């Protein structure tokens, strides 16, 4: 238990330092158009289990420039309500991941699609899959190969943030790009 907590704190600290000024403690607010956080909060919660190492494993090549490295650190794509359209603000991030996959053919990613808690669970599994597929298509178009990408949809089953606020919903409608070991 202590070890896990220490690990979580360590990962958190790492994430904060990697992301410069971004705060990772973002309290839940009621603001509807609150822009969901980037990597910091996401990395902070992945302290153990299957997702351990999510924060640091995306950079196999230390010759990458600073900017690419920052883009690759961004591993969560957020979506609007009831939408699987990838917003233009994620173009650069997905471009960096696609290039990373294209230049490193042995890398593999799992795209984990998620939905907010509203509506029925299995339909939300469908929505999460649709989002994961939207991200997959963009990665494929930009040079990743099909064998490098698997998708899984967790629907509303693994919320990044609990609670029934608009800001929690905004954080939960997402696709996580998980690099495989």
């Amino acid at each position, binding site marked *: 238990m202590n070890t896990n907590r220490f690990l979580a704190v360590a990962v958190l600290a790492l994430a904060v330092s990697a992301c410069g000024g971004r705060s990772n403690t973002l309290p839940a607010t009621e603001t509807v158009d609150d822009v969901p956080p980037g990597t910091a909060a996401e990395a902070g919660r992945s302290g153990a289990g299957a997702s351990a190492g999510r924060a640091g494993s995306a950079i196999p090549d230390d010759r990458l420039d600073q900017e690419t490295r920052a883009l690759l650190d961004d591993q969560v794509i957020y979506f609007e309500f009831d939408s699987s359209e990838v917003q233009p603000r994620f173009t650069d991030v997905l471009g960096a991941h696609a290039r990373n996959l294209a230049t490193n053919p042995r890398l593999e990613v799992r795209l984990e699609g998620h939905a907010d808690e509203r*509506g*029925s669970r299995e339909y939300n*599994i469908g929505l999460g899959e649709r989002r994961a597929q939207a991200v997959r298509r963009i990665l494929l178009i930009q040079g990743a190969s099909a064998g490098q990408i698997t998708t899984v949809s967790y629907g509303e089953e693994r919320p990044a943030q609990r609670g029934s606020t608009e800001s929690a919903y905004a954080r939960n409608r997402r696709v996580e790009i998980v690099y495989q070991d």
Partner: protein
Amino acid sequence: MKRALILIALLACAGVARAELTIEITQGAGQAVPVAVVPFGWESPGEAPLDVAAVIGADLARSGRFEPLERRDMLARPTRGVEIDFDDWRMVGTDLIVVGRLVREAEDDYTIEFQLFDILRSEQLVGYRMPASKRGLRLAAHRAADMIYEEITGIPGVFSTRIAYITAEGDEPDRRVYRLIVSDADGANQYTIVESAQPLMSPAWSPDGRRIAYVSFEGNRSAVWVQTLRTGNRQRLSREEGINGAPVWSPDGRRIALTLSGADGNPDIWVMAVATGQKRRLTTNPAIDTEAAWAPDGESIYFTSDRSGGPQIYRVDVEGGAASRVTFEGRYNARPRISPDGSKLAVVHDDRGNYRIAVYDLENDLFQVLSDGRLDESPDFAPNGATLIYATRQGDRGVLATVSVDGTVKQRLASSGGDVREPVWSPFRRDF
């Protein structure tokens, strides 16, 4: 509307499942029948292994259609019909009286005897003897309540049936524990069927009540499993790329309809033979087609599809062909379940921004919203078709609730810990 508030703390099987379910009647029927369930006689040495009358009384109270007399208001404690003084009980204002005895025949061999009398007519309505083992006593008491309920209402009782549901405990997203739990319909006798650090979803009873199909995300991908309750043996039915979800059984128990999305990510309804795994695609629409519900006659499948934009319910012949749209009320109707007689369709419905349980009367084209929560989901019919169980919220927590199909009787099954959701009601029990 009369508001009966009864709290019954139920004994959970200690150490088996931590979260207890507590039943709270939030809305009773307008005219509950007053009934006296007199404590059962017990003549063997030591304490009786079960308070049979308490179980029967709690069942009847929980239905919302009966109002059991408090024990302190009972004038006498008859245990046989011949001991009842009907004039006395008439004065108390009780319409019905249940008397009985629990008898130990041998070490693990008991008999429950009970009689139901109409007090106004001084007439026996039901009299029955049931053998039971010590472990089977609670079930036998539920059976007695089923018979009493059916005698008075004309509807088979479901007190002896079971429910299955999913729980999730732990606030840290990566440290949650998911369980598939089976309990008696009153929340007692909980036991864990599956426990996992990855999500579990969509339990579905086989028509004979012996197996449960469910979705598990172990290994970071979805798979549909079929597990035999008695043995714990489990069979992996499907673990394709993409979605493996929403399993439901055919009425004959030989096939399972499920959702598969394949590598191209297009969720469609498939039908799979349980014994061989041989499968056939039923829908091909590029939209999300999911949440199959098999009609009781076995010939058609209802499902959710957003081919028209938002999710609505469609129906397709099991042998294939074009799907026809069934629901048109509002912008969101999903997760259909069909009543045992095939006449009603329960769905999750967007009611002015609130997700609620609604029922369509397919024969009369009527539509009624039955629940009043904000995030209600996963409705399922009791095997007698009279009640729906569903998932709702109490504060920040997922809890289970039931509502009679006419909307009059409502109750909540509050849990002591974690989220409780995705309840499914077992078929009638045949293992007696």
